[in-house]
């Protein structure tokens, strides 16, 4: 079964928790392990938080778009904002790099996302916004297929 959802939320930090559960509930249709669910939810948190605090500089009335596509054993997740964009993506993806050193866990968002997902593409341009296109293979799903 292939399934797809599209969700738009406002750029307020209260919605981070909502976005985590919305994506989590959607991918629960594939019955992943708790570990995989936690990983995906963490990725959603990091990406949504980046859109809120970096992309939209904490302005509340902007939109963040989340698309999630379920394939047989793969999850595709696209999180996009129309915020300020990233000038140097390679630099931004470096572990510990942050443009806001005053924040907690500074500079590890991209690293965490890359660690939990099997592929991460970032498309961004100044003043146009940032789109994160990510994929994760559910290994729990894979081993189940292999059993049969």
């Amino acid at each position, binding site marked *: 079964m292939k399934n797809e959802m599209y969700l738009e939320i406002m750029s307020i930090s209260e919605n981070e*928790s*909502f976005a*985590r*559960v919305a994506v*989590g*509930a959607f991918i*629960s*249709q594939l*019955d*992943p*392990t*708790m*570990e*995989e*669910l*936690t990983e995906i939810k963490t990725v959603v948190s990091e990406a949504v938080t980046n859109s809120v605090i970096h992309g939209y500089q904490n302005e509340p009335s902007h939109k963040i778009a989340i698309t999630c596509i379920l394939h047989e054993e793969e999850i595709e997740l696209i999180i996009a904002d129309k915020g300020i964009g990233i000038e140097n993506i390679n630099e931004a993806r470096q572990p510990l790099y942050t443009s806001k050193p005053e924040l907690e866990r500074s500079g590890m968002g991209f690293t965490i996302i890359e660690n939990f997902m099997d592929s991460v593409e970032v498309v961004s341009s100044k003043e146009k916004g940032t789109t994160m296109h990510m994929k994760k293979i559910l290994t*729990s799903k894979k081993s189940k297929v292999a059993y049969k």
Partner: protein
Amino acid sequence: IGEIQRFLRDDGSVKVSRSLKEAGNKIRKKKDELTKKYGRSPTINEIADNLGLSREEIVHAEEAAKTPQSIHETVFE
């Protein structure tokens, strides 16, 4: 079996369907308990605070507890 279950739980490889269902059962108990205590339906924050879950997670777990998520589960549990 207890050992194996604990192991599964610890390394996170337990299936979402099962884990949420357990949380869902806890929520149902807490809901009954608080309904009796307050004499009205508890709010979602009251349940969430009591169980240390987010209110959004409460909604997800409550739903999971009522729908069989896979044939495996309905047959084997």
